């Protein structure tokens, strides 16, 4: 597959690995933000090829993982209503709420459907005028443009039976929350390539400067990640803290302007709680007042629901780079992909699921 296979060349990967070994003289801790990158790193064993001085910790960039528990409970409550067709990306269906998950609501007779794109949910609303169609609109800056378009399109079509249950979150405020913590271990960031494809990377220079931390926009294939790691380590070794772009084939400094424009028309910044991490100021988006008719939380009056987390789950510490999945006492025992206790065990983008899937439960873990 063009633009995929060539970035998986083993010979070229070995060159980067050798170069990283060559320039590394001290211990460094790097964080990849995006769960998709975590997945590639663990799948291809990239962390095991690196010098022992380099530790990769896994960031909060897993939409399923950071969506607040109470929002999942609200989704469950809405999905149970008889007139509702509840639509979602597949990953969200298995995330445990306080008591159950969406798949169980479906098994009990709820009309819960998996869609590939939010526009499919709009189409369902058009075709089912006697039903309320609700789309579970979660995710980072990558899913925001599609969801903004879905709302905008529903408005153009004059649909009154379409709404979204939304908890959009933003990457830069989360990076700042991690860097600003007194316990922070992260010395360099691999910024999430596709978030930057949408948003550009104009938001990062102030962060790099304020916290003296290199930030390298990085792609998703093994060669991308190795080059991103190489560029970050090189900066650290040379005492630089700049913003660089490894993923030049898909990311520009300004990002996707039409997407940023529509996001700004449909959504506005708001404080958001992150599952496992807690509230982060101005770290999310909500519908602008002109679009509140499409807000499922208001439409179904579930604003009062609150929820408490399972105390054994250490997902929050994992997503802030303080611990690794195998440090969790439940990992691979009570908590498995078949019976997830916490959200990072559900999604392919969750660090716990990646460690479990690629057999990092036992011997291969590099301490």
């Amino acid at each position, binding site marked *: *597959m*063009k633009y995929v296979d060539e*970035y998986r060349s083993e010979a070229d990967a070995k060159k980067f690995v*050798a170069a990283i070994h060559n320039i590394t003289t001290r211990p460094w801790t790097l964080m990849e933000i995006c769960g998709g990158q975590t997945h590639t790193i663990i799948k291809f064993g990239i962390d095991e090829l690196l010098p022992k001085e380099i530790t990769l910790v896994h960031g909060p960039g897993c939409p399923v993982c950071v969506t607040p528990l109470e929002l999942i409970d609200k989704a469950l409550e809405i999905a149970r209503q008889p007139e509702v067709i509840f639509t979602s990306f597949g990953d969200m269906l298995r995330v445990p709420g306080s008591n159950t998950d969406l798949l169980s609501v479906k098994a009990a007779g709820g009309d819960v459907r998996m869609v590939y*794109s939010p526009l499919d949910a709009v189409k369902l609303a058009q075709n089912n005028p006697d039903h309320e169609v609700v789309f579970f609109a979660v995710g980072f800056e990558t899913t925001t*443009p599609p969801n903004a378009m879905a709302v905008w399109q529903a408005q153009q079509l004059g649909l009154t039976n379409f709404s979204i249950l939304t908890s959009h979150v933003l990457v830069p405020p989360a990076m700042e929350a991690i860097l600003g913590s007194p316990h922070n271990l992260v010395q360099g960031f691999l910024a999430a390539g*596709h978030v930057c494809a949408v948003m550009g990377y104009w938001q990062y220079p102030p962060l790099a400067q304020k916290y003296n931390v290199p930030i390298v926009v990085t792609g*998703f294939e093994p060669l991308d990640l190795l080059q991103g790691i190489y560029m970050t380590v090189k900066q650290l070794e040379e005492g630089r803290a700049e913003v660089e772009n490894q993923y030049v084939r*898909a*990311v520009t400094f300004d990002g996707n302007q039409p997407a940023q424009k529509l996001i700004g028309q449909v959504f506005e910044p708001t404080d958001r709680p992150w599952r496992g991490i807690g509230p982060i100021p101005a770290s999310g988006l909500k519908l602008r007042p002109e679009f509140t008719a499409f807000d499922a939380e208001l439409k179904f009056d579930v604003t009062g629901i609150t929820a408490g987390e399972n105390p054994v789950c250490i997902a929050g510490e994992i997503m802030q780079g303080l611990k690794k999945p195998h440090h969790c006492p439940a990992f691979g025992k009570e908590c498995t992909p078949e019976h997830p206790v916490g959200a990072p065990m559900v999604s392919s983008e969750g660090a716990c699921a990646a460690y479990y899937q690629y057999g990092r439960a036992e011997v291969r873990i590099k301490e």
Partner: protein
Amino acid sequence: MCLGVPGKIVEINENSIGMTMGKVNFAGIVKEVCLAYVPEAKVGDYVVVHVGFAISIVDEAEATRVFEYLKQMDELAELDIQQPE
């Protein structure tokens, strides 16, 4: 959810409310994709597609950058080194 996949645009059209849509080929599988966020895209371009939306056009010239980078490092002899044990 952030896993964008590159595919080749094979057709561009408009839907009933005037939004630019298209067909994109992902190594043999053709899917309907919204192209409204990449207004300058042409048939034959590669786009990164995410949940049914093209979010970026793959820059053909920049796509070889990583290999040039390796070559440069080679010339600077940064690669000519002790292999990891």
